[in-house]
């Protein structure tokens, strides 16, 4: 028996650890650092229809126990991802979570249809924190109806299970989660980054060229835990938990809150070996807690 194994729709993972989308590129950089086949899965950087350069630099800033980023979805576009990025991941024989983004429903549908056909893509992860240009810049991720509709349309074309990645910048996260579950989502990813800003005292201007950015890292973990705790009690689809995971203890805390597996983002920048390190440490931690299989603790804080 593999006590770390977790099974989610479309994701058979030998352990509950995957790098988070946008924090691991398309894998090839970290592939030079360690053997990626130890990972439970990999979530690759958001893919859009066309190649994008993203925002001007500076694109990162630091905060207390966290960081802000405003990369702006830089990526080589659907074609580039399929041609140049995905093939290199085959050798690791682990599930691939393809994060997709867009500015119109049509964008999402197109990328979803194409990427979900790819044999190496295990599931789609819908990044709904992007502004919907057609609806006047409101975010797909902050209005339940809009998120519901988007999910439904993506589900209709996707050959693979669809996870919706929720934005924490909402008044009612449960409402959002229920709306996308009702639209047919197979799972949830939460949380994406919190909107934040830092101002430089010398220049007196925002540090990020984009002004605002997404806050990630340990600072946001309590918000992630709270949201996962609330949502996991109200939906019956599994949650990929993320937000500030730095060590094995954080993984357990998030799974106790209700996540079925986790994604590690910012921590990769602090320590490129963090994912294999956590995977290695988990069994001893389970022993100390007297837990046999890691799946036994999912939602343990409220079950």
């Amino acid at each position, binding site marked *: 028996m593999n006590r770390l194994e977790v099974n989610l729709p479309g994701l058979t993972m030998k352990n509950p650890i995957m790098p988070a989308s*946008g*924090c*691991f*590129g398309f894998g090839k*950089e*970290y592939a*030079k*650092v360690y053997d990626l086949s130890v990972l439970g899965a990999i979530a690759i*950087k958001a893919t859009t229809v*066309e*190649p*994008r*350069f*993203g925002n001007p*630099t*500076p*694109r*990162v*800033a*630091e905060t*207390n*126990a*966290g*960081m802000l*980023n405003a*990369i702006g979805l*830089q990526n*080589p*576009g659907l074609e580039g991802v399929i041609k140049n990025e995905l093939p290199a991941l085959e050798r690791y024989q682990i599930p691939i979570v393809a994060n997709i983004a867009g500015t119109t429903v049509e964008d999402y549908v197109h990328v979803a249809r194409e990427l979900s056909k790819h044999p190496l893509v295990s599931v789609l992860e819908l990044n709904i924190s992007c502004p919907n240009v057609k609806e006047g810049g409101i975010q797909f991720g902050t209005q339940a109806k809009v998120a519901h509709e988007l999910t439904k349309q993506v589900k209709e074309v996707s050959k693979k299970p669809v996870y919706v990645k929720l934005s924490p910048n909402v008044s009612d996260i449960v409402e959002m989660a229920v709306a996308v579950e009702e639209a047919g989502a197979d799972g949830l990813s939460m949380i994406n980054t919190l909107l934040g800003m830092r101002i430089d005292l010398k220049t007196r201007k925002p540090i990020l060229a984009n002004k605002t950015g997404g806050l990630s*890292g*340990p600072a946001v973990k309590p918000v992630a835990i709270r949201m996962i705790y609330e949502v996991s009690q109200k939906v019956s689809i599994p949650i990929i938990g993320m937000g500030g995971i*730095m060590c094995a203890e954080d993984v357990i805390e998030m799974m106790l809150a209700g996540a079925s597996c986790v994604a590690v983002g*910012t921590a*990769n*920048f*602090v*320590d*490129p*070996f963090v994912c294999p390190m956590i995977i290695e440490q988990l069994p001893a931690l389970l022993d100390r807690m007297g837990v046999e299989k890691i799946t036994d603790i999912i939602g343990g804080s409220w079950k």
Partner: protein
Amino acid sequence: MKKELVKVVSQKKIARDIFQLVVKGDVVQMMTSPGQFVHLKVSDGYHPILRRPISIGDVDLEKNELTMLYRKEGIGTALLSEKKPGDVVDLLGPLGNGFGVNDLKKGQTALLVGGGIGVPPLYYLGKELKKRGIRIISVLGFQSAADCFYEEKFAEFSEVYVSTVDGSKGTKGFVTDVILQNSFDYDMLYSCGPTPMLKAIETNIQPEKGYFSLEERMGCGVGACFACVCHVKNGEPFDYVKICSNGPVFPIGEVEL
């Protein structure tokens, strides 16, 4: 590339806010390309959370020692400046691609142009070029006399010219003033310093061949996060290079400053 807890051998203030830090570790064996950098975790906790990129200033492969030169700037370098001999520092490196040291033939001339805290990588570069029998001219620019460092070290292998903005040492003005006034003869220009300086070199000196080393705020330092990109000259609008993994050193003319 490797992650290692290297040991501080010495720490010394060598000019206003400028520190020279020597560390020791096996990872130093990998540091054979001048212009590469290391990524340092300066605190145990998460404030600051990100690593700090610092250039390889000099390497002693026999002693396994790496010399870094840095300016105490913000919280990260302030914490670094508190490290004492015997302390350990979490180092990731070497990262990125360095200067082409084999582009010149014996007897040809290299012009090294360093501005402020852009000077350090040029020192290791100069030493390596010297080994290859290259003639070297160094132009080092600083704010004022109090900020100058390593002039005498560069004199070990090159003719050295210094400029200061306030004229308190060497030529008053910028490195470009020194270059224009002296109309040096050189085959290759190697430069590292603030972007406005690099731009001035590109515009006013228009070197035919050479390398620029660039800086940008970084996340991962290894090419995974897309924090440190810049546009490519004459490329598509979405074309880019990453300063951390494709650079920090680029052939002059390749990227948009």
